[in-house]
Every structure is written in C-alpha cells, then in structure tokens.
C-alpha cells in the first residue's frame, strides 16, 4: 500500500498502529524543563553504552568518560583480577577529580591534591598522615558505578538497576553477541557536536523517510524503485529497545572504487568470521545507542545529550584484529570515510529542525507509520518522564507530627 511496489514487503502500517497515531508534543524536543526531567527519569535509570572491552586490554588499563547530562565523570578500569569496574572519578577525601587523561594504563590512581592513592579495584591503598583522619581506609573506596558487558560493549548504570543488562536487553542481548563488535579488538572513531536535542538527533538515524532527499547520492544503495523511501524490511520492539532490518537495493550499481573497496571488506569479514546472520540488522538500544550488524561497515552511534538543545555524537566502526596487511588497512580507511560522508550529510538539517522547534511555533510534531521507531522512542521517554513526575508528586513530604519528630 501507499506506493510500495511488488518486490518490497515492509511492515504494514496497520501492524505498527499499536504505537499510537496521535501527534507528538513538540516541547520534549526543545524545552529545558523537560530535559531536566529526562536527566533523572531516563539517563539515571537506564544502562548507558559507554565503551568497549578492547579499550581496556590490560590490567590497569583505564578510560575516563564524561556524562554531561548527569554531571558525571567516570573512571573505568580493568583490575589486576581482570574484572572491568566503573567508579566515579572523584577522590573520596574532598572530591577532587582523580584522572585527567582520557585513557592510559596505571597500577594506582593518585589524587593530585593530597596524594590519596587508589588501587585498580577502587580501594584506598594509602593516604599521607592518614592516622589524623577519623575514618577507616575501608570506608574510603572510590564510589562504584554498576557496569555490565554485552557483545564486547561496556554499559554503565548511574542509578540502581532494577534489571541486569542482559535481562533488560532480552532477545537483543543474543543478537549483540553475534554482531561484529563482539569480536572487535580495535576501532575507528569520529565525533560531532550538534546544536540539537538528543532525541531529534537520534530520530534522524532511525527513520528512512529522509534518505532520498538528504542522501540522494551517498544513500543510493538503500533506496530503489521497489522501495523509493528505503523503508525497513522489518521492525521489532522489546521494552524500550527496538530493531529494524535494513532493505538493500537488489540491483545496486556500485562505482568501481566503491565496489573494490567494499568487496575487500566483505572478503575480510568472511575470513574473520564477523559476517554473521545479522548483517542487515540494526539495534536501537534505549536511550541513546545504535549499532549495525553489517560486517563491512560495523558502526555504532551514541548520541549524548549535553543540554536540551545540544548533543554530541560518537560514531565507531569496530574491527577484529589489527591491520595486518595493506588491503585491510585500505578497506578500513574507506569504510570509515564513506560512513563519515553519510553522517556528515545529516547534521545541517537536524540543526535546522532544532532552530524551528526552538521558536515555539509548533505545539506538535508528527510521525508517519514508517517513522515508528521515532514514535517508539518518544513513547518510552514519555512513559518514564510521566512516571518520574508522579513519583515526585507522591513523594512530597507529608507534615511530620511532633511525636514522630522526637522519636
């Protein structure tokens, strides 16, 4: 229906109607007060994808990661026992941030202020003149943050998780195990800053309606006569997470260098065993992480909110094994450059959308049936924000009686 032709079988609009059809309020996409609710209701209550195990190859390897939406700096360390742990990057003496470097390897973490020293397991090992304090060293370990790993990807939870990571991801945990990133030992990365709300930014990458207009040339492989908008073959949902199976033009017309480059990447993927059953599958894990199962362009994309109207995107292509020959190095450089080209095309139009919304001219925005993944994200966010608001209202302290106060 709606102009789709034989040869492409997507999701029928009716099969997605359970997500609702109503207009979507515009304020959540630009309003600072709404974003303040999201900080707690969404970002403090979800597993957040923060890194990859290949960044922490050895005992003492560490990475520092900032989560601006929660005003948090994290120190993620592989301990002597091999376990990866996350801590707040704060000395327990008087709060000084312990580590400035983005990554590195250390046996201990020593505070620059008064030289309190912590082990890779977060324990306070030594502190000068400690006998003059009124506490035990055992009570001075670095504050721990919940951390779990799935498919090689490191997730943290800044609140109290009500579910373990795999339980939360459900069937998508097993899918992640089969994605190329699960076997990765290195990666390419590029980063962008954008003057746009994190959901507006994220939504761009989970609807295909825009492809033919914004990516008329670079997006040619994913639109075609049978499917002019490049709508997904399949969409799926689990809790606040979602997936789509990307449609591929059955009659692609790659250019010569393009064909040679992706041909090499595909041969390496076959040889490496990273070409799994999920090569057209795309996972969107709530709240702000995407990952693609394609072995030729195995990219992930995290959209970090900075404030209501600013975000940062981190895009990685995960690779198995170091560059061992010229062809492999070339194929990876091409894959990175071509993915970067496509992502570069989206940024301007997302910012234009944000400027329009910031004017307050619109009370509502609209998602069509095939923008179902965007609607699903809004529904998941809205549900959490409303629940958080209700909690805060019911948690308003009742008057305390004199007897209770004295007890």
């Amino acid at each position: 229906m709606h102009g789709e032709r034989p040869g492409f079988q997507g999701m029928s609009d009716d099969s997605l109607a359970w997500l609702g059809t109503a207009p979507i309020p515009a304020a959540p996409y630009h309003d600072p007060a709404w974003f303040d609710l999201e900080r707690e209701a969404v970002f403090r209550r979800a597993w957040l994808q923060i890194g990859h195990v290949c960044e922490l190859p050895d005992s003492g390897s560490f990475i520092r990661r900032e989560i601006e939406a929660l005003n948090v700096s994290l120190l993620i360390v592989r301990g002597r026992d091999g376990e990866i742990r996350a801590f707040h990057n704060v000395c327990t003496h008087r709060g000084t941030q312990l580590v400035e470097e983005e990554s590195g390897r250390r046996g201990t973490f020593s505070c620059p202020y008064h030289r309190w020293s912590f082990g890779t397991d977060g324990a306070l090992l030594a502190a000068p003149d400690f006998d003059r304090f009124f506490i035990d060293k055992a009570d001075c370990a670095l504050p721990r943050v919940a951390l779990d790993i799935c498919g090689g990807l490191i997730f943290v939870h800044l609140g109290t998780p009500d579910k373990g990571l795999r339980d939360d991801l459900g069937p998508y945990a097993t899918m992640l195990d089969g994605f190329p990133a699960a076997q990765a030992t290195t990666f390419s990365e590029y980063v962008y800053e954008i003057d746009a709300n994190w959901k507006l930014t994220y939504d761009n990458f989970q609807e295909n309606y825009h492809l033919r207009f914004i990516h008329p040339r670079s997006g040619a492989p994913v639109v075609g006569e049978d499917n002019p908008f490049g709508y997904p073959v399949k969409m799926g949902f689990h809790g606040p997470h979602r997936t789509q199976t990307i449609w591929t033009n059955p009659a692609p017309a790659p250019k010569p260098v393009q064909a040679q480059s992706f041909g090499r990447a595909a041969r390496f993927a076959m040889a490496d065993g990273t070409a799994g059953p999920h090569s057209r599958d795309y996972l969107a894990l709530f709240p702000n992480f995407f990952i693609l199962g394609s072995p030729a362009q195995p990219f992930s994309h995290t959209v970090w909110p900075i404030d209501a109207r600013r975000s940062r995107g981190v895009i990685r292509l995960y690779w198995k094994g170091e560059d061992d020959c010229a062809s492999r190095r070339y194929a990876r450089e091409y894959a990175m450059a071509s993915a970067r080209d496509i992502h570069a095309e989206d940024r301007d139009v997302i910012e234009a959308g944000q400027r329009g919304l910031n004017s307050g001219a619109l009370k509502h925005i609209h998602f069509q049936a095939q923008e179902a993944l965007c609607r699903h994200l809004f529904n998941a966010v809205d549900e959490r924000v409303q629940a958080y608001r209700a909690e805060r209202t019911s948690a308003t302290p009742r008057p305390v009686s004199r007897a209770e106060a004295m007890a």
Partner: protein
Amino acid sequence: MTTLLPTGFEALAPFADRWAIDGSITRAARRGAADPAVRTAFFAAAAPLLDAALAHLDRYPLDALPPAEQRLMDMMLTLAHVSLTEEILGDQEPAHARQRQHMRITRTPAGA
C-alpha cells in the same frame, strides 16, 4: 625519482608530493580543500592502479614498508577519501566538504 614509487607505479610520481599523506585527519582535510581539477587528475591516475597497488603492498609487512611502498600506501589511503568525491558526490562536494568538517576523526587503525 627512481625510488619515489615502486616499479610499475611511476605514473603516480607527479601526484606523490600532494597526495602521499600520513594520517586519516590530514587525508580527509586535503580531499576537502583540494582544487577540483587537481583532485580529479589524481583520481584519474590512481583509481585504475588501486588493485595492483594493494596486491604489491600486501607482499610487505605493513609496519616495515620501504619508503617507496609507504608512499604508495599513503596515496592509496588518500584515494579512499578522494574517490568518494569523484565517484559519489560530484558537484555536491563543496557543500559536503563544509559539513564533513564537523565530523572530527579521533581514531583510525591506520593512525588518525
């Protein structure tokens, strides 16, 4: 000039100074800043040699390429970027180059 590039790749010699570039960030920037005619000429000379160049380079250990082979490697890595303009974008390149600058490369296996 005899050691500038490996035997069989002499045709690329006039392009080596400008296009044998160390580092993914610099390669990407050179693509965007290049004079279109100069970039097109490099692509026309290098693209037909891509397969042969990689086949030649694959015979050497990647971390110990002789200087001529390293130069050829760096030119092929730049070709990866340049080909996207020449094969895919065409006249969209100027607007695209401005947008690409916002995508900051921070790490690549080849060395950012």
